[in-house]
Structure formats: structure tokens, C-alpha cells
């Protein structure tokens, strides 16, 4: 029993460090979502209106929407490389359960996409004239929210990994499931800006993350088994 647990742990940590190393070797890919986030936020005042008042009022929602789109951008690639080179089949044959492997991969994905986005968001919030008091809730809510969205998006990526042009299907599948996260996350920031207590929204996002951590890994593992074995 203990032996099995040790095997699981070593397998998971091997996948985790392998993925981190892969990400490090493709450092330029890491910057893609961040650059998209920056460009989208830059376009916003040009397309709408640069007055600080308007920007400040739409900033919470806009930062959240752009961050959401930025995570979607690279979601397609989450399992693509492993599917193409056959590692995915090896993961399924490996002694440790597939959902643990999936969890390790999603964790790396979140560390390299969601977390940088959350850390970069306050900088862009300054450009959008987000009022005082919104910065800490923005980072906290995006940290939790991108983790939930990574887990949900990974299901879409797993379901579409066998399709040549799965990007649009992925967006269609994942978007409705993102909706509660967006609503609660954007609301967390705007209620903090309005001077209310935002711990309720953070607690809801945390609850969502707990639920997603329970539900999603087995679902993603099942989806991977289905889509890669045909």
C-alpha cells in the first residue's frame, strides 16, 4: 500500500518535472498568453474611450475577460504534444493512475500560464486605471480563477486532442463552463473597488476550485482515454 503510494508520487513528480522542463525549453511559448493579454488590454482604450472614469469602471470585467481569453489561447496545446509523440499512450500504460498524471500536467500548465497572468494583471490594471483597493483582489481572484479555468479547459483540450482543428470546438465546449468563474471573479474585483468585503467571492472561487479538483481529473482522464484510443 505504502509502496504503491510511493510509486504514484514518484510518477507524478516525474511528469511534473518533465513538463516544467519542456516548458522551460519552449520559453517563448510561455510569453504568448502574456503578450496577448498585454495587446488586448492596450487595444481596449483605443477602441473604446481613454477617459479614466470609463476605463476604471469597466476595468474589472475587461481584465477578467482578457485573462480568460488568454488562457484559452494556449489550451489547445496542453495535450497536443503528448498526443503527437505518443507519450499520452505511455501515460495510460503507466502504473500510476492517469488522473494523477493529468493533475500534474494541469498544475504545470497553471503555473506557467495562469499564475503569470494573475501576477501581470495588476500592472495592466494600472494602465486601465483600476481604482485603489482592486489590485489585491484582482490578483487573488485571478490566481484561483485561472486554476479552475485550467482544469475546465483541460477537459476541452482532452476531448479535442484527436481533432486536427479542434480550436473552435474547444472554445465552444469550454466557454459556457467558464461562465460562473467569470461572473464570480469579475464580481470579486468590482465589489472590492466599491468598498465591499470580497471574501465571499474568494470563498466561492475556492469552493469552485475544490469542486473542480474533485470532478475534473477523472473526467479529463476518461476523455483522454476515449479520444486517444480510436
Amino acid at each position: 500500500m505504502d509502496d504503491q503510494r510511493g510509486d504514484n508520487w514518484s510518477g507524478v513528480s516525474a511528469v511534473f518535472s518533465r513538463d516544467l522542463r519542456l516548458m522551460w525549453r519552449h520559453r517563448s511559448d510561455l510569453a504568448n498568453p502574456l503578450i496577448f493579454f498585454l495587446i488586448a488590454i492596450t487595444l481596449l482604450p483605443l477602441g473604446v474611450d481613454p477617459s479614466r472614469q470609463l476605463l476604471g469602471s469597466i476595468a474589472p470585467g475587461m481584465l477578467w475577460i482578457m485573462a480568460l481569453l488568454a488562457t484559452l489561447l494556449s489550451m489547445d496545446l496542453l495535450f497536443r504534444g503528448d498526443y503527437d509523440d505518443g507519450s499520452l499512450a505511455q501515460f495510460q500504460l503507466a502504473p500510476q493512475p492517469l488522473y494523477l498524471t493529468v493533475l500534474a500536467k494541469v498544475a504545470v500548465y497553471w503555473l506557467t500560464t495562469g499564475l503569470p497572468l494573475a501576477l501581470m494583471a495588476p500592472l495592466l490594471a494600472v494602465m486601465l486605471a483600476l481604482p485603489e483597493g482592486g489590485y489585491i483582489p484582482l490578483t487573488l481572484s485571478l490566481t484561483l480563477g485561472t486554476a479552475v479555468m485550467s482544469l475546465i479547459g483541460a477537459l476541452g483540450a482532452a476531448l479535442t486532442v484527436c481533432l486536427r482543428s479542434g480550436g473552435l470546438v474547444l472554445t465552444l465546449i469550454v466557454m459556457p463552463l467558464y461562465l460562473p468563474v467569470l461572473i464570480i471573479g469579475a464580481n470579486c474585483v468590482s465589489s472590492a473597488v466599491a468598498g465591499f468585503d470580497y471574501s465571499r467571492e474568494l470563498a466561492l472561487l475556492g469552493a469552485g476550485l475544490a469542486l473542480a479538483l474533485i470532478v475534473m481529473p477523472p473526467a479529463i482522464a476518461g476523455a483522454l482515454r476515449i479520444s486517444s484510443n480510436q
Partner: protein
Amino acid sequence: MAWQWFHRLGSPRWFYEKTSRWLVWFAPLTIALLLIGLIWGLAFAPIDAKQGNSYRIIFIHMPAAVLSLVGYYIMAIAGGVGLIWRMKLPFMVMQAAAPIGAALTILTLATGSLWGYPTWGTFWEWDARNIFMLVLLFLYLGIVVLGKVYPVRDAADKACAILALVGTVNVPIIYKSVDWWYSLHQPASIKFTGASSIHPSMLYPLLLCIVAYYCFYTLSLILYTRREVLVREARTQWVGELVGAPNNGDKSGGERHA
């Protein structure tokens, strides 16, 4: 032995032959119920004091909204049964339920906006129920599209079933969060007519319409599933005999909606 009926449910042929017998009386019953309910509601129910005749769209709109939500759960449960017991028929039911549900959400949205124009003064309002219906439509479309783009039939069924099951966890959360969002961004002018205060002379046709819609949903689910059965089992012997045999009543039943 007790489980025999359950395993028989998994057989597409058994379903096809059974429903051929049911449809003989079920289809006319459904059409009759629909006609009675709609004519009663649209022509004979009294005029609403505030909304005039425009309220009558509720007899089309409200049952469609109910069924589009119920249909999602029927689809997901069918998918779950298919995944767990590895049966063919539930997957066919699931694939048949997706376009029907999508059509019902479109009907709900269309009738809702037609009602909204004279009543609210706009075709589209970012109201909690509007958004929820729109998101439900996206959820249905996701399943329809995923089922279409998958190269292998068997994998498509399972993938759609997983997506539908994850969706069932999410549907109540989406519903609550949209509701919550709406209560925070409440626009001032809109008030729903209280559902509890509906007069019996309008309630009875509405209830009849709901029953009729349930029957209609079941009927279309059966017909779509029969079509799916014929398409997927096209190479089996019994379908060959069915299509090849002359003067067979089942044939027209299957092809009517093909």
C-alpha cells in the same frame, strides 16, 4: 432474470420494434393534445388585463423553456447510462436529444424576444433567464458539434456523454451564478408577472400545454432515435429486411423524419 428487461433496453432492434407499436397511438395523441392545448390557450383563454393578447405566447414559450432544461438532464442521464452499462441505445437517445434540446432553446429564445418587444420594449435584455437560455443553447451546440466532428462514432458517443455529465454539474452553478449576477446588476424597469397569481382560466390551458410538450418531446425523441437506430444499424440484417420488405408499415414510420 429480473434484469432481463433492462438489458433488452440496450437493444436498438427491440426499441425500434416496440416503438413502432407505440407510435400508432402515441403520435395522434400528442398531436391532439398539442392542438387542444394551443388552440385553447391561443384562442379561448381570456385576455390578460395588463399585457393584452401578447401574454398568450406563454403557452408556447414556457413549456419549451421547461422542456429545454429537462431535456438536458435526459440527454446527460442517457449518456451516463450508456457510459456505465456500455449500451448502444442510450447513446443514440443522447445524440437524438441534443438537436431537439437546441431547437427548444432556440424556440424559447425566439418566443421570449417576440414577447419582450411589446412588453419590455426590446427584443433582447440581459436578463438572468435570457442569458441562462443562451448558455444552455451553447451547451447543446457544444455536444452537437462534438458529436459531428469526431471521426469515430463510438468515441464520439463517449466524449459527448462525458461532456454532458460535466455539464450537469455545471448547469445549476451557471443558473445560480447568472441569477446572482442579475440581482447585483438589477435594471430598474423590468418586473415579471407573478407566476403564482395566474388565474385558473389561464393556468389550465398552460398545464395542458406543458403535458402536450412533454408528449411532443417524447415523440420527437423517439422519432429521432429511430432515425439514429436506422442509420447506425444500416448494415445489420434486420434493417435490411425492414427496408427491403414491401408493404411494411414500419418503413414509413422510420423514414418520415429521416
